[in-house]
């Protein structure tokens, strides 16, 4: 989908339970897009796949579980050791569990 113009130092994360390597120095959303992972979540209301749309914290299409909390992946810098769960394999996962 995207190619990265300059490679950046990679970080190791746990993505949906699998150890994965993502480019560092950018948001979780950008790092996932850079590796071809375009689906960010399943819409809690329609069950359909979503991908990041605004990349600036407006649309919430990139909401995913990062280190135990629902966070906007486009506003969160990817870090070594992060645990990222998109819950894209199970249908209708309650995405709002932790959010007020």
């Amino acid at each position, binding site marked *: *989908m*995207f*190619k*990265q*113009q*300059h490679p*950046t130092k990679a970080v190791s994360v746990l993505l949906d339970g699998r150890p994965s390597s993502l*480019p560092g*120095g*950018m*948001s979780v959303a*950008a*790092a996932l*897009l*850079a590796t071809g992972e*375009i*689906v960010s979540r399943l*819409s809690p*209301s*329609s069950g*359909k*796949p*979503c*991908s*990041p*749309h*605004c*990349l*600036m*914290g*407006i*649309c*919430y*299409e990139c*909401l995913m579980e990062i280190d135990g*909390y*629902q966070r906007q992946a486009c*506003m*969160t*810098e990817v870090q070594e050791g992060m645990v990222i769960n998109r819950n894209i394999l199970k249908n209708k996962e309650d995405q*709002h569990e*932790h*959010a*007020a």
Partner: protein
Amino acid sequence: MSMQHDAVVIGAGPAGLAAASRLAELGLDVLTLDEQFRLGGQIYRHIEKASDQQFRFLGDDYARGQILAARFRKSGAKYESSATVWQIEPDGSICYSRHGKSKRIKGSYIIAATGAMERPVPLPGWNLPGVIGAGAANNLAKEAGLQPDVPLVIAGSGPLLLLEATQLIKKGAKIEAILDTTPQIPPLSAAPKIPPALLRTDFLLKGVAMMQMIRRSSVPYLKGVTDIRCLGSEQVTGVEARQGDRTLTFDAKMVLLHFGVIPNTHIFRQAGCRMAWKNDQRYWHPVCDNWGRTNFERIFAAGDGAAVYGALAAEYKGELAALETARCLGILPEYERDALAAPLRAALKKDMYPRPLIDALFSPHFDATALPDETVLCRCEHVTVGDIRKVVAEGVHEVNEVKIITRSGMGPCQGRMCGPALAEIVASESGVSIQKAGLLNIRPPLKPIPLDEVATMDLGPDGSGPANLFKNQSK
């Protein structure tokens, strides 16, 4: 870190950086909060980490951010990144969340420089994976050096659409088509706007250069396009549109949409600032005096969040708000404030010459009646345009009432994505004016915050309990 500051600036784009730098240079205690993990706002995103290649590619308009950032660092202004402000109050109180902890602080003055966002315009399939904002793609290029490498279509209207198109042409992206929805004959209202624009030939030449580059490329550039729909079921696979009587179809794995930018006003609406409707640009903005002061003595608005005039104007307005704040704090006498403001006002005036022309050329022309019923309006709650039409037909003509019945605007984005179009649809279906259709009420928290974070938060100077932080959340 102290809980009380002379001023708190929200946003570290051009407006916020200029405001904070000036205040700190005057010896005031200023804290800048921005929810991004790096400073620069939208236009100067990633400015402190950009590569030489990025600077060369993005040119002087981007490089100006480097000067601003360096000034800000040198000024001694305090800065916290990844700090999401989720409530402000007229007395200067601010609640914000940072790395999973919330706290409440106070500024004698608040300068909210929260910037603009791409105007969300619903169309069939705009919520499919692979459909993203053109400005959003620009963000990815700056922040992460990402460049689309699949066949794509660029669609919509506005200077930023053309800017993104030319950048992608230069990079050799596989653009199947540029679908420009700007009407083919410029509106008559644009003609009287030309003379002042001629005072800024540098600006006009930039526009001409962009158009020439697009026209000379091999990319099909189609004007006067309507009825755009993104095709696909699990992911976007193409685009269909109309140009006059012609139906156009293109295969694409990515679609970049852009329909101009509008102020990001949630923070002002949450605070209860008086809002005004700008009819030619079809957006709401906080009402401000010529220093950026809202109807609340202690809350200022600066930059594109106050009204969209671009990055340079944002910088000047940030600085003007800072000068008035310094006067209020007793640091600058009135005559000195005015002397310092004079060159800024002159620069602002010069910068604004082309604006009426740009605004007239790209005036929004959203036709709510043309949207098919099945178009998803509210992504969060999956509410369609048809759902809204049904409720309006039953006699509900105010957006907050429509929201309660349909849930449009009740999801985590709090109506950021559906609100503007919701009001257009309600107004056009009911025949009431857009002002009467109203504006979605915004309650704190501005962004969803985990409850345990609120329960354990540091309450700051006056220590009042969290109970009154969430008033009236039902609507």
